[in-house]
Each structure stands twice: as C-alpha cells, then as structure tokens.
C-alpha cells in the first residue's frame, strides 16, 4: 500500500504540546512536561551555582549579587510555580495510579491549578517584596 503516514513516532513529540481538540487531561500532561523540563534546567543551574562556591568566596559573592536582579528573582518564581504545579500534579498521578479518585481526576486537576495560581500570587508577592 502507500507510504504510511500518521504513525506513532518519537518525532511526534512536538504534537504533545498541541492542545486543540484535547481535554483537561492533556493540559495536565503538557504542564507536567514543561514544568519537569523547567525544574531539570533549574537543577543544572543550581549545580553551576554550587560550582561557583567551589572556586572561591569572591566568585560566589559576585554571583549572589546577580541573583538579586529582578530577572533572576522572576526566574526563581517560575521555579517555585513549576515546583508547586509539578508536585501537586504528581500527587494527582500518584493517587490515580493507586486507583484512588479516578472519576474525579478532572476536578482534582482544576483544584490543583487553582492552588498553583494562589501559590504563584503569594510567592510572587513575598519574593519581590523581600
């Protein structure tokens, strides 16, 4: 027959992030992936920062000054938001994986989105006014 198109393939990964026609569960899936990437990136950054400490106190102090810039504080806020979302959705995945509350998985997702937004506002305020 013809050259098959439309087949499953790792090359389709970017289609994960197209939510058209999809339901809330896909949003949970997409955000889980994005926050995971973000948190992993932050982990590497964190290791680099610690690496600076190994060089010497002056280099570290210079770096710490950079961290007080608004750009970096915003970056850290993103990490916090990602952590909140990823952790809460992780709980949702954990619960459903044990067969708990599966019929309510959508409601739980909406609940954790709300908690994430509340957390974002709270930490946004506290981190920028510190």
């Amino acid at each position, binding site marked *: 027959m013809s050259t098959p198109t439309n087949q499953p393939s790792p090359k389709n990964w970017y289609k994960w992030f197209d939510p058209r026609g999809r339901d809330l569960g896909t949003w949970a*899936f997409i955000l889980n992936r994005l926050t995971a990437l973000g948190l992993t990136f932050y982990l590497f950054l964190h290791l680099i920062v610690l690496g600076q400490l190994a060089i010497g106190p002056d280099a570290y102090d210079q770096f710490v000054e950079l961290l007080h810039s608004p750009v970096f504080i915003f970056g850290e806020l993103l990490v916090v938001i990602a952590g909140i979302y990823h952790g809460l959705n992780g709980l949702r995945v954990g619960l459903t994986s*044990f067969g708990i509350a599966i019929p309510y998985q959508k409601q739980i997702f909406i609940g954790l989105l709300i908690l994430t937004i509340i957390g974002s506002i709270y930490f946004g305020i506290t981190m920028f006014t510190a």
Partner: protein
Amino acid sequence: MDMSHHQKDLWTVTFRVFRQKGNAAGHYDTFKLEVNPDEYVIDAVERIWAYHDRTLAFAHACHHSTCGACGMRVNGVEKLTCITPIHTVAKNGGITQVDPLRNFPVVSDLVVDMGSLYQRMEQVGHRPVLPLPEEPAGLPVRKNNGNEYVRLSDCIECGLCISACPVALSTPGYIGPAVLAGALQHGIKAAPALLALVDSEDGVWRCHSAFECTKACPSYVEPGTKIMQLRKQVVGERFANLFRSNR
C-alpha cells in the same frame, strides 16, 4: 436525491475532508452539503461518497456502535461517527473537519490500518464474549436455563483511545489503552503469562495519566481506570512473588 426531512430545517455545512491516495502527500477537499443536523457524521461522509466524490475511501459497517469501524477525528476530536449527530460537531453555515484517526498508518483518505490493535488484543487474549458481570448489589448472575447469560464485551476495538493517547502518539511500542484494558479482563492472577507483557516499559508504566482514552471511549470501557487497576494488580503480583521466591 431523496431529502424527505421535511419536518426539520436543513443546515448548510462545509466538510473539510482529509484525502490521500497512494504515496502522494495528504491534502484536504471541501464539500458543501445540505444536511439534517440530526443525522450522523457517517451519513454525511457516506453522502459525500455517494453524490460528490466516489473516490472517497472510508470505513463503516454496523452504524450502531458495535463494530468499531467508523472511528474518525472530527474537528480534531476522536468520534465514533455513526453515533455522533452532526449538530454536535457543526454549525449551520460552518466548517467541519474530518480526519482519519491518529497513531495508525493511513491506508487512504479516512481509512487507517488498525492491524496492530487487533494483533495486540489477540496477544492479551481479550475475549469478545463474556458472562454478564455480577449485579452491583452482589446478587448472583441471572441464569438462563442453567446457562449463564453472556454478552459481547464493551470494547469494540474502535481505536479512538489509541488515537487520543499522547503516549501512543510518540511511542510505537506502547501497548495502548484498549489493550491494557483488555488484559484486565483475565487479570494477572488468572493469566500470569500476561505479567511480562504488561509490567514492562511499553505496558502499564507508559501511561502518564492524560485520561484522554477515557474521554474518547464511546463504549463504557474507561481504559484509563482499567490501566490503573491493572497497575495495582501488577504491583500486588510482584510483591507476592517476592515472598514466593524467598524460600
């Protein structure tokens, strides 16, 4: 053209239909139809073939959600087109897009090759006919002259769940929601040979809880729930095996 729908106002709907022949690239053809909005999407597709374009290839058989042949994506959403009324996926004067299911190779136009699904269902030994499930109140199964009533199982192997699943999108080896739900029919205790198949990288652990499968299923299977139940069985069995082998 017999249009005896005199009691219902007809809608004008433009259908944008995916086409592909041979090795050529896919493209979309549009067809403007006068439709009874209470008719089903498969009726519109059939009419496109009958009156507008006889080269259109599409699959359909029972027209009452028991065969699983007519699954398509309508406006990007998986639907069993024989039970999807047009008014739920179209507006009068609007455009409705019809694509083949995802994650199966396209044979032509709206036809996909679901051989992998059937093959995997066979592998997990999914039985198409089963005794009726027990009454919810724990009452005994009603007997039929001493024989159990049996019933065709819920899963109609339509492939909608696999089309909707983001993991099936990227992972050719993933067994898939319908099949994992099918494996639950026997369960791990009754069929320990299934354990190796489902307790694997491409088995139950591939699922990442998008639950699009449950959303897409037209036939009461709830594959997402079944995958989680199967996980419990797998963990339970592995745990029990720890004690069995330590003698």
